C-alpha cells in the first residue's frame, strides 16, 4: 500500500507470474540488447530440444515467422519488453531468430528515409 492508499486489482495488479519468473531472474539478454524498433525474424532453423523452451519462447518464435519489430512483438504477445528481450536473446543464442534489418541501430535515419517518411505522411 502506498502513501496515497491506491490499490491495484485484476490486470492493474500485474501478472500472476511475475516477469522475472518467465526470464528465470534475468533482466537483460546475453550480448547486445534489442532496440525497441529493431526488426527480428525467424531464421528457419528448427528448434531442437523442445524442453528447453518455455511456452513464451514458442509464441515468440512462431510470431517471428514474419519480420516483426520488437515493440510490436511485445504488444502482440502481451509481455513486458524486458521479458521479450531476454527470451529473444535465448532464441538468438540458439540461432533461431536474427535481426532482419541492416540499418545500424541508434543512427538517425538518412535523408532517403526521411524523404520517404515525408512522402508517406503526405499521402496519408
Amino acid at each position, binding site marked *: *500500500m*502506498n502513501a496515497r492508499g491506491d490499490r*491495484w486489482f485484476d490486470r492493474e*495488479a*500485474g501478472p500472476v507470474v*511475475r*516477469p*522475472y519468473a518467465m*526470464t528465470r*531472474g534475468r*533482466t537483460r539478454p546475453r550480448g547486445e540488447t534489442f*532496440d*525497441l*524498433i*529493431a*526488426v527480428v*525474424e525467424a531464421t528457419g532453423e528448427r528448434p531442437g530440444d523442445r524442453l528447453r523452451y518455455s511456452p513464451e519462447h514458442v509464441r515468440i518464435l512462431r510470431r517471428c*515467422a*514474419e*519480420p*516483426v*519489430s520488437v*515493440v*510490436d512483438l*511485445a*504488444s502482440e504477445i502481451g509481455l*513486458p*519488453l*524486458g*521479458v521479450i528481450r*531476454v527470451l529473444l536473446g535465448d532464441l538468438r543464442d540458439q540461432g533461431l531468430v536474427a535481426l*532482419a*534489418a*541492416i*540499418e545500424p*541501430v*541508434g*543512427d*538517425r*535515419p538518412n*535523408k532517403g*528515409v*526521411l*524523404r*520517404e*517518411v*515525408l*512522402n*508517406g*505522411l*503526405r*499521402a*496519408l
Partner: protein
Amino acid sequence: MAFGHSEPGDPPLVTTKILIAGGFGVGKTTMVGSISEIRPLRTEEPLTDRGVGVDDVSGVERKSTTTVAMDFGRITLTDRLVLYLFGTPGQERFWFMWDELALGALGAVVLADTRRLTDSFPSIDYFERRGTPFVVAVNCFDGADRHRPEDIAVALDLDPGIPVLLCDVRRRDSSKEVLISLVEHVLSWSETEPGPAGAAAPAG
C-alpha cells in the same frame, strides 16, 4: 501486422520513430491515437533488477516503481517503411527511459499547453541538450487563450528556426500536419547542422 516472410533480395523492412513529449495531460496519448493505425498500445517497461531481493508477493506497492506503461502507435507508410510514435513517460522518475526512446529517433514533437507552458520546459531542455531535432506543437484546448506562435517561441526561449505550430491533436489531419512539419524541419536541419556526430552529447 503481417509483412510476409522476407525472401532473399526483398527490400528489408525499415523502421523509424518519432517521440511525442510534453507535460502531463497535454494530449500525447490523444495525438498518438488520432493518427496511429492501431489503438495506442500500452506496453510495460522495464524489467529492472532494482527490485531483486526486495520485490516479493507482498511488494505490490513496488509495481509503480518497477514498471511503467508506455504509449506507442504505428503508421505503416509503405510496405517496407513503418513509422512508430512513442509517447514519452511524463513522470520524472521515468526519465531514464528517455535515452532509449530518443536513441535513433527521427525527431520529436513537444506538445505544449499555453495555460501551462512551463510543463514543456523539461522536454525542450532534454532535446536541446541531446541534439534531437524537434518542433513545438501547441495543442489548442477549448477555453485556452490563443497566442501567436511567435509569442510562444519567445515565451519558451526557443532557438531561432525551431518551428512552433498550433494544432488540435484530436484531429487526425492536424496531427498529420505536425508530423509533416517535423520531418520537413529535420530535413532542413540536417542540411545546416553538422549532424548527430557534431551535436552536443547528452549530459551524463
